[in-house]
């Protein structure tokens, strides 16, 4: 079997298939379970500086080819989370702490207070006031937050970007200027669903973020554009559900992928994707590096 080991944004992953932020990432146990099930790395639920209950329900709606969610960044605060990270680490793969704040200082404070293998800055959640894409849509804020966390953290810093923008490359370049070790693309697309019997927006928060197969073509395009224009690695996320999707994302330029919504199929998805990827490389007699960014070379 060909090697699936990758070096991604300062981490070494035994395979490029990671658990995405906010998916089964609330407890150390569930993170470890993903690792034991075959994930090459895991990302925690996004952590803030104070506990949050998140939005009222429904927090999720199944739509055609995807999920709409407006969890609202529920989390126990980073202060309560170190013990979970420590448990997660017993799974044997890198544990990336996803963090969020409303200012560069708040981000930096959280990064200073946590011991993790890397930080992923959530500058892209589309449905939490004062957080996520409300900062992340502005290149100067992306740069400032990245710079502050870089200065504060003793681990690699990844920046997760929003696709709710006219030009995701501008945001990626800002992250790069701020010193990011990698960018992660994409977070969910701002979206909503309405109950036609009553006219109520279904999500408790009215609008939320669209994920799953529906957004994969948007994610592939984002990764492609970013990989062609940035010098730092790109981690691809959005709709990855099969090994074919992982290949497509890597050909677009991703050095690793993250899987979120597809966890609906269960933890087995990690092994399924890695195995498919390995078999594909074997059949083609190629390495991960050979296929990475292949689409950009066909221009």
């Amino acid at each position, binding site marked *: 079997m060909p090697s699936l080991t990758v070096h991604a944004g300062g981490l070494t992953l035994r395979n490029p298939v990671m658990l995405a932020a906010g998916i089964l990432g609330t407890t150390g146990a*569930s993170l470890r379970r993903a690792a034991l099930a075959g994930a090459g790395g895991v990302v925690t639920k996004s952590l803030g500086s104070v506990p949050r209950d998140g939005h009222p329900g429904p927090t999720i709606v199944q739509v055609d080819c995807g999920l709409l969610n407006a969890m609202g960044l*529920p989390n126990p605060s980073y202060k309560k989370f170190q013990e979970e990270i420590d448990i997660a680490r017993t799974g044997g793969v890198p544990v990336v702490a996803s963090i969020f704040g409303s200012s560069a200082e708040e981000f930096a404070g959280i990064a200073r207070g946590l011991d993790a293998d890397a930080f992923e800055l959530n500058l892209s959640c589309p449905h939490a006031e004062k957080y996520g894409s409300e900062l992340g849509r502005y290149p100067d804020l992306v740069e400032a937050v990245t710079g502050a966390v870089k200065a504060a953290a003793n681990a690699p810093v990844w920046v997760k970007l929003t696709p709710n923008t006219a030009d995701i490359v501008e945001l990626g370049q800002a992250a790069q200027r701020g010193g990011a070790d990698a960018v992660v693309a994409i977070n969910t697309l701002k979206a909503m669903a309405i109950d036609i019997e009553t006219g109520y927006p279904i999500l408790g928060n009215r609008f939320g973020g669209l994920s799953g197969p529906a957004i994969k073509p948007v994610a592939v395009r984002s990764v492609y554009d970013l990989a062609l224009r940035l010098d730092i690695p790109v981690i691809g996320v959005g709709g990855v559900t099969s090994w074919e999707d992982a290949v497509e994302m890597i050909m677009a330029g991703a050095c690793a992928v993250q899987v979120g919504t597809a966890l609906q199929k269960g933890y087995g998805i990690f092994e399924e994707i890695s195995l498919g990827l390995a078999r594909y490389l074997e059949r083609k007699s190629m390495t991960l590096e050979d296929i990475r960014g292949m689409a950009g070379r066909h221009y």
Partner: protein
Amino acid sequence: MRPIDSIIQEVRSEAPLVRTFWLDKQLDPAPGQYVMVWIRGVDEVPMSFSSPDTITVQSVGSATQALFNLGAGSSIGLRGPFGNGFVLRGKNILLVGGGVGTAPLAFLGEQARGAGIKVTSLVGFCSSQDIIFQDRFEALGGLIITTDDGSVGIKGHVAEGLKEFDLAEFSQIYLCGPEVMMWDIISRTREHAGKIQACISRYFKCATGVCGSCCLDPEGVRVCVEGPVFMADRLIESEFGRYKRGPDGRKGQCRG
């Protein structure tokens, strides 16, 4: 799936803070499965089926109170049925329930009787006025009631009623109620843990196995899709009975 619109057909008061709602949709649930009930403009919360087309709800907070404001003809949104449900095993079963946790057990008992299985019930409530489904359990077979204040039946917690039975006789034991009560029963009957199925509760947000809100330590079991029914021997090795997490993921006590 998007929430299905369901018109409430009838509401019956079972006890001061407990009501049963008849739904107009046939969701064909198994006993122990649950449905996410959307009270529009308020919240969406999990409820077990108390029969193929009813849920029985205790008013404890904002969503359940809002539900109590809805009468026949009002509509709610439903996602489900979800979860694994109880599995019937053997020919002689015992149901052990507490409070509104008796709801899925009444449903299970009726299904078991229909399949020719012998059913015995042990159910506990705070006081005489809190008793629900007495007629349904009586119709199933032997019934022991406990009340905390002794106003009806045996005085004390449900576990007090255990003395009335030789648990070895039962092919399977089914448990549902407040976590402290279930934990009390399970810890007193460890030798039978391999034949006890317990329907448990955790904080559910997505009910589809992705958000991580309901995960059980130390294995990260997703109660919303891998449960809510578990064998007691599996629970003994878990956080169950020791702590549970709230909406923000912090550990808290496991009352309620």
